[in-house]
């Protein structure tokens, strides 16, 4: 039984670990914090011994654990600005050393834009637009009522769309 659980766990981990870390990292914005939350989520997940029959159910459960950890950490620690500045410095140095260009800069610019949203808005947008979850699944992951979630997601989308439109206008004005 235990061996069977372990095999299912290894398969589940192989399928989802990288995208899960990526989701945490992009929504919390700090690599060390992402590592901590990632490990803590899996430890809690394994300790809870959820029903392992349904992989989709497992994934929702895992993302729900991570959501609460991310929101909790973001409330306690205001690391975003500091972490971002450190990252810019490291990237600039690396780019200077390696002679690299646009890809990293573009990524940095996009990250900067994404960070103008609130943590929960980032999470909702990521789950809906990158992971492709339905309203019902996101509501379960974030312990939010579906109707309330629709409004929150609408506001997040509207805010990001406005930022992007403003950037586009600014870009056109400069050229």
């Amino acid at each position, binding site marked *: 039984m235990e061996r069977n659980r372990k095999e299912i*766990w290894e398969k589940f981990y*192989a399928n989802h670990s990288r995208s899960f870390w990526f989701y945490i990292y992009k929504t919390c914005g700090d690599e060390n914090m992402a590592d901590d939350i*990632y490990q803590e989520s899996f430890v809690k997940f*394994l300790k809870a011994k959820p029903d392992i029959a349904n992989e989709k159910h497992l994934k929702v459960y895992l993302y729900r654990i991570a959501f609460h950890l991310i929101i909790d950490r973001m409330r306690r620690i205001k690391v975003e600005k500091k972490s971002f500045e450190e990252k810019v410095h490291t990237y600039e140095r690396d780019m200077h050393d390696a002679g690299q260009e646009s890809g990293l800069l573009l*990524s940095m610019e*996009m990250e900067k834009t994404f960070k103008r949203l609130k943590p929960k808005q980032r999470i909702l*947008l990521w789950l809906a637009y990158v992971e492709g979850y339905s309203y019902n699944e996101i509501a379960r992951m974030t312990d939010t009522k579906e109707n309330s979630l629709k409004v929150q997601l609408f506001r997040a*989308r509207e805010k990001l769309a406005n930022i*992007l439109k403003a950037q586009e206008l600014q870009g056109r004005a400069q050229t």
Partner: protein
Amino acid sequence: MSKKICTLENDVMKGLREERMSAELREHIQGCPVCQDIAVVQGWMNRFKENAWKTDMTEKTLPTAEGMWNRVHTRRKPDKKLVKKALRPLLIPQVLFYGLLMAGIITTSIWGFKKFGNILDSRVISQFLPFFGIMMIIVVFSLTFCAIVVAFDKRKHPV
């Protein structure tokens, strides 16, 4: 109040995410402000994910599944039944020791009281002192033993 939800938004999101847009959906987007916003955001999110994946994930190493599994299962709290079973051999000397100690204390006390009466009567203080010393040694030893047992009992055993 502006329109917040479109019935086709899920189809638009899916189509844009998977880059499979039908002509109908394209036409719908032209006239729907909700879906226009969705298209802007979905397109941007796709590019953001692709760029970030290249820069953030190519060199990122994560813990192995085996490592995570072991981390959780070696950290597990000891099973109380197993701890009790492991400590069972200690019970026999413990009970024996307390039995002997009690017997010793009772005997010595009775004897000591008799002697104490004699001391008061017959001035033989030097005869009482060895018994008092033995009693003290027994008490000190028993306290030390108890302290060791308690300390051992409270230690966390990885079972």
